[in-house]
C-alpha cells in the first residue's frame, strides 16, 4: 500500500475530479452574462422571383445583414454559429423556416459585422405561396461554449413582404 504508483494514481484521479468541477462552474458562470445583441437586416433588392419547373416559388434577394453579437462572448465561449432564416406562414404549415445565410463567428473581434450578400441558400417554398407573402427575417444564433451547456436565441425582424408578381 501507499507506494509510488498508488500516490500517482490518487493525484491523477483527484486532479481530474477537480478539473471536472472547475469546468462545471465555468459553464455555470455563463449564466451570469446578460447579453444585449443587436441585429438589422435590409432587403436591398429582389434579384428574381419565379416559379420553378416543379411548381415551387423561388426568390433570389440581395441582403444587407449587420449585427453586433459581441456581448454573447464570455471567457467560456468557443464560437457562435449564426443563421438568418425567413419565416412565414402558409395554409399547409403554420411555420416555414428557410435558412438564407449562415456563418461561424470564431471570436469576439469578428462578432460585429456587416455583410452585403445574396442569399447563400435557396429561398424556395413548398408550393407557390410566396407572391405577396408577408415574412419575418430571424437571426438565430447558437453559442458554443468551451465546456458545458449550449445556448440558443434569436432576434425576429418583422414587416417584410415579397412582390405580388413574378419577375
Amino acid at each position, binding site marked *: 500500500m501507499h507506494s509510488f504508483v498508488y500516490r*500517482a494514481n490518487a493525484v491523477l484521479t483527484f486532479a481530474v475530479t477537480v*478539473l471536472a468541477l472547475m469546468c462545471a462552474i465555468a459553464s455555470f458562470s455563463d449564466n451570469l452574462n446578460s447579453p444585449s445583441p443587436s441585429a438589422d437586416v435590409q432587403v436591398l433588392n429582389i434579384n428574381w422571383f419565379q416559379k420553378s419547373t416543379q411548381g415551387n416559388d423561388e426568390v433570389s434577394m440581395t441582403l444587407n445583414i449587420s449585427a453586433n453579437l459581441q456581448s454573447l462572448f464570455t*471567457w467560456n465561449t468557443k464560437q457562435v454559429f449564426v443563421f438568418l432564416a425567413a419565416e412565414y406562414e402558409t395554409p399547409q404549415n403554420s411555420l416555414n423556416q428557410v435558412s438564407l445565410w449562415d456563418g461561424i463567428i470564431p471570436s469576439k473581434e469578428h462578432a460585429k459585422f456587416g455583410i452585403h450578400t445574396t442569399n447563400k441558400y435557396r429561398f424556395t417554398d413548398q408550393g407557390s405561396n410566396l407572391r405577396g407573402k408577408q415574412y419575418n427575417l430571424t437571426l438565430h444564433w447558437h453559442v458554443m461554449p468551451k465546456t458545458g451547456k449550449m445556448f440558443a436565441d434569436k432576434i425576429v425582424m418583422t414587416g417584410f413582404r415579397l412582390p405580388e408578381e413574378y419577375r
Partner: protein
Amino acid sequence: MDWQGQKLAEQLMQILLVGFAVVAFAAGYALGSFQMMLLIYASGVVITTLITVPNWPFYNRHTLKWLDPREAEKHPKPQIASSSSKKKSNKK
C-alpha cells in the same frame, strides 16, 4: 513512507490541488481566459505530483520502532490455540 507521512501526503495532495483550482479559476475568470485557467491548473497538478508522489525524507520522520526479535521471544503472544482447535475438531 511512515504512517504520519502517508497522512501528510494525502492531506497535502488534496489541499494543494483544491488551492490551485481556486487560484486558477479566479485568475482565468478575472483575465477572461480559459486557457490561462488550464495552464495554471496544469502546472499546479505537476507541482502537486512532485511534492506528494516521490517518497521525500520529510515523510519519514516518524519511523516505527519495532521490538528486537530476541526481546519479542521473551514475551510470547498470548495463546488462543485451545479454542481454535476445538472449532476445527467440530468442523471435522
